[in-house]
């Protein structure tokens, strides 16, 4: 408990918050890396996931690829990419994207698959084009699940973004590595606590977004069932 207490004191010490190596700047860096990884992963995974979900094609491949990507040890990817791309942000960012893609991809196609087929057929019967079916029916109805996928990807990435510091890219991982190697466990644990706090905040944010993304019609229908 004593170490936890010292870690808390470390977090609260104003002198640890100042300057470009302070907790504030490192946290922003860390959140920035997380956001960038999520954006890149979404640009890759969401269109593919929607295409798989909409057409029903390529599901086996998507499952296999994302399963394999999930099994990759991130530190290994960071090192391997670092040996190819050199030090800096490119190597860890690649690893974070690899980490984030499976959750987002699975959520994107699962979101479409969860849409009631009768709803899709009804939309077609009413004369909606394929594009309209996609954008007006499948995307809004699949959105809550997609946000769920983003939420789990965000958690994984924000916890793993500490590895950016392994190849000189900064972030909150700096405190973990420096604390570990200099036996400054208050710093190490303090850095971890900040990561945990950011992760909780991010998770709450995504949970709220997920709830807000449930279309009104679905909410009304659910209330109807409940009564």
């Amino acid at each position: 408990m004593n170490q936890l207490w010292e870690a808390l004191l470390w977090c609260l010490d104003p002198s640890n918050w100042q300057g470009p190596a302070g907790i504030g700047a490192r946290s922003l860096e860390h959140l920035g890396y997380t956001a960038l990884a999520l954006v890149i992963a979404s640009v890759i995974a969401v269109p593919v996931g929607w295409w798989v979900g909409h057409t029903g094609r390529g599901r086996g491949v998507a499952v296999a690829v994302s399963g394999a990507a999930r099994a990759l040890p991130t530190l290994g990817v960071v090192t391997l990419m670092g040996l190819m791309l050199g030090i800096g942000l490119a190597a860890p960012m690649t690893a974070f994207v690899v980490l984030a893609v499976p959750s987002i991809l699975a959520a994107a196609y699962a979101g479409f698959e969860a849409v009631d087929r009768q709803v899709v057929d009804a939309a077609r019967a009413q004369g909606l084009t394929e594009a309209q079916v996609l954008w007006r029916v499948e995307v809004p109805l699949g959105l809550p699940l997609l946000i769920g996928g983003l939420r789990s990807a965000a958690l994984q990435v924000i916890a793993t973004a500490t590895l950016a510091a392994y190849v000189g890219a900064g972030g909150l991982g700096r405190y973990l590595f420096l604390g570990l190697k200099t036996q400054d466990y208050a710093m190490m644990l303090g850095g971890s606590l900040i990561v945990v706090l950011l992760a909780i905040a991010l998770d709450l944010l995504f949970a709220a977004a997920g709830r807000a993304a449930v279309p009104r019609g679905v909410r009304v229908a659910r209330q109807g069932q409940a009564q």
Partner: protein
Amino acid sequence: MTPQPRRLPFAHRSLLALAAISAVALTGCGSSDPLGGGASGSAGGGNDGGSAGEAIVIGSQQYYSNEIIAELYAQALEAEGFTVEREYQIGQREVYLPELESGAIDVLPEYSGNLLQYYDAESAASTPEEIHAALAEVLPENLRALEPAEATDQDSYNVTREFAEEHSLTTLADLQNVDEPLTVAANSEFETRPYGPEGLKEVYGVDVSLVPVEDSGGPLTVKALVDGDVQLADIYSADPSIQSQDLVTLKDPENLILPQNVTPIVSEAVDEDAAAVIEEVNAQLSAEELIDLNRQSVEDQSSSADLATAWLAEQGLA
């Protein structure tokens, strides 16, 4: 009355999920976990004779090169009829020194300068001889340092051959002649070490800034140097990549970096005969021999046991 499945409030659920995630994240770096100890003993091969009380327990740091040296001692002792037990890959000083002091481990290859600083951070000793003499005074009663080997494994500032020739660099002091800003790739703790950027400024009047790369002078650090992302890199002097990448180690005439001669630390369970066997190994362990052993381990992926057997036979020690 059927019990309803109880749903945890949302906040509890996300906290649980987070706890699980952090647990996974923490175990992910288990091999260097400072709180877990992480002593992974390997079974001593074929010493069926002798009770545990008689066996000499040989430990090693969690560092491949250190394990090779420990294995050299182990096989040399076995060749002389001693019974040994191997407890290799024991984390860091904080973990294994108490084990040595308590007598749970009897022999561990150490590095003289860093060990001295562990016990006496203020020590002014800077040459190998001074360090050895100082060690004898600071070590706990029941431990002693045997004769150090010529081989050292210490931090060193390295540049590419091209960079060295362009600025005619041979010593750290020559870095004063370089006009461009200098960066050094090293582990983050380098910033806090006496031989880090501050020490370099103080002793040689050279300004460098740290680019933290956390693989302890491994392939990522070497790549950063070879790619020109940094001008200097902190690499252990016994690392074979200094040769294979044709790097130039800058000389340190002012002893900014403490010499780290391979020094066996032994407990009272090691008698004079056993100590003599270990010192005989050390006498043959030159800097080149250690680099070559490390190279074979890294490049050929040979096991420490195979390397030790071949080396001892070559030296006529087993």
